[in-house]
């Protein structure tokens, strides 16, 4: 009787191979559930934000638009050599102690060879689009440099606004939260955008500074640089150690992005090192915002991962592009498949692998 029970007990047990298969299936199911909750299911936040800067009633034009586009930009095809920036600055950065931020960044030296590749090669301007109303002047150019497998194609939007309120941002579905995503095109259309580019994909992270259109949603500092656009039209970039949330709010923060790294030193020189990781530093499609002067900004989208059309750029190359466009400050936004530029309801660039849905955009609204 006892032997029979023992035999039954043994029969019930799974073989080792069955057990391994079962564990692997459980692992796959657990990863699936994790991904579903963490990356797929939209999680709307109850956080409605706190208004910290209001320029909606501001009717005065703080900045003036340039009187006319220069003849140079009106030419259908021009060739220019980007000015070589000789001034390079170095930056020493104190890391945030034991704090482990959500970007796992470190100081990665900028590569002067990469930057020289851009500065020494001829940049060809192929086409342009212009949009002007009484408050906004926007010029979009497609530029190419290099040839064959080294070819780089990028799009430059030269933006002038009379008031900072015309440089806006928007969330996917108009809602702040996690995993709430849509294409740049759709978010732009929902917000009547004439022009839009991808933002910093704030929804991909649980930490980071999020200030949009004068509303503060989040003020957690992670390991990434922070870029702040103020209501007076100035832009500043901060390392996580130098960032003081209260001070920035007191100064009138209008927008704040938290992706990075910062690319230029405040006078157009390429930083000696970038606060990033090796994955982000490689050749990729890019999106960046640059600051020339109050009311004058440059937004650049570089296409990539498409040999013969555009290979993408490293951060050093992106810094050189931004410097060459006349920016004194520049900041890298979310790139890769996210990098997209939209004008008048159509994609301007060719997003890598068809692009991806993002959580936020930077836009210029229509009249």
């Amino acid at each position, binding site marked *: 009787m006892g032997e029979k029970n023992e035999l039954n007990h043994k029969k019930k047990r799974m073989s080792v191979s069955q057990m391994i298969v*079962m*564990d*692997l299936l*459980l*692992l796959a199911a*657990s*990863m699936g559930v*994790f991904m579903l*909750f*963490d990356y797929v299911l939209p999680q709307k936040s109850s956080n409605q934000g706190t208004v910290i800067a209001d320029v909606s009633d501001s009717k005065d034009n703080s900045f003036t638009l340039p009187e006319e586009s220069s003849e140079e930009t009106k030419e259908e095809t021009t060739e220019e050599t980007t000015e070589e920036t000789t001034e390079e600055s170095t930056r020493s950065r104190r890391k945030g102690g034991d704090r*482990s*931020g*959500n*970007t*796992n960044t470190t100081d990665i030296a900028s590569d002067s060879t990469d930057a020289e590749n851009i500065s020494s090669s001829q940049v060809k301007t192929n086409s342009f689009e212009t949009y002007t109303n009484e408050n906004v002047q926007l010029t979009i150019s497609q530029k190419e440099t290099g040839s064959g497998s080294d070819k780089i194609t990028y799009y430059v939007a030269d933006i002038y606004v009379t008031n900072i309120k015309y440089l806006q941002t928007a969330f996917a579905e108009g809602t702040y939260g996690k995993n709430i995503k849509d294409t740049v095109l759709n978010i732009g259309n929902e917000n009547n955008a004439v022009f839009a580019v991808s933002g910093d994909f704030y929804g*991909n*992270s*649980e930490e980071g500074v999020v200030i949009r259109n004068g509303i503060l949603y989040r003020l957690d500092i992670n390991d990434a640089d922070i870029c702040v656009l103020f209501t007076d039209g100035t832009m500043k970039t901060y390392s996580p150690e130098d960032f003081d949330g209260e001070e920035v709010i007191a100064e009138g923060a209008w927008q704040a992005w938290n992706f990075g790294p910062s690319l230029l030193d405040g006078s157009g020189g390429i930083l000696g090192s970038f606060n990033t*990781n090796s*994955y*982000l530093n490689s050749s990729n499609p890019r999106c960046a915002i640059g600051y020339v002067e109050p009311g004058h900004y440059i937004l650049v989208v570089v296409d990539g991962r498409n040999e013969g059309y555009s290979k993408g750029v490293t951060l050093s190359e992106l810094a050189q592009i931004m410097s060459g466009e006349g920016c004194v400050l520049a900041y890298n936004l979310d790139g890769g498949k996210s990098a997209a530029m939209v004008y008048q309801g159509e994609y301007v660039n060719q997003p890598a692998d068809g692009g991806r849905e993002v959580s936020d955009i930077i836009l210029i609204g229509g009249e």
Partner: protein
Amino acid sequence: MKQGFQRFLTRVLPHITIVLAGMFVIFWILDILNPTMNFINREISNKLLIIFCTASLVTSIVTIGLERKTD
């Protein structure tokens, strides 16, 4: 009830430990490939880590206890 709990400790908990260990190995590999994904430092990962540690601890204690019993 007691038998059910014992069965859970000896039969189910080791598999939970294996699955959680596998998940963290995958997180670790994904974080190497793309550090910005930051799987290991997420809030939900911290909760899973606590469950993993507890499961490992209990499994180890039960295994040692059973080993001593059979000796």
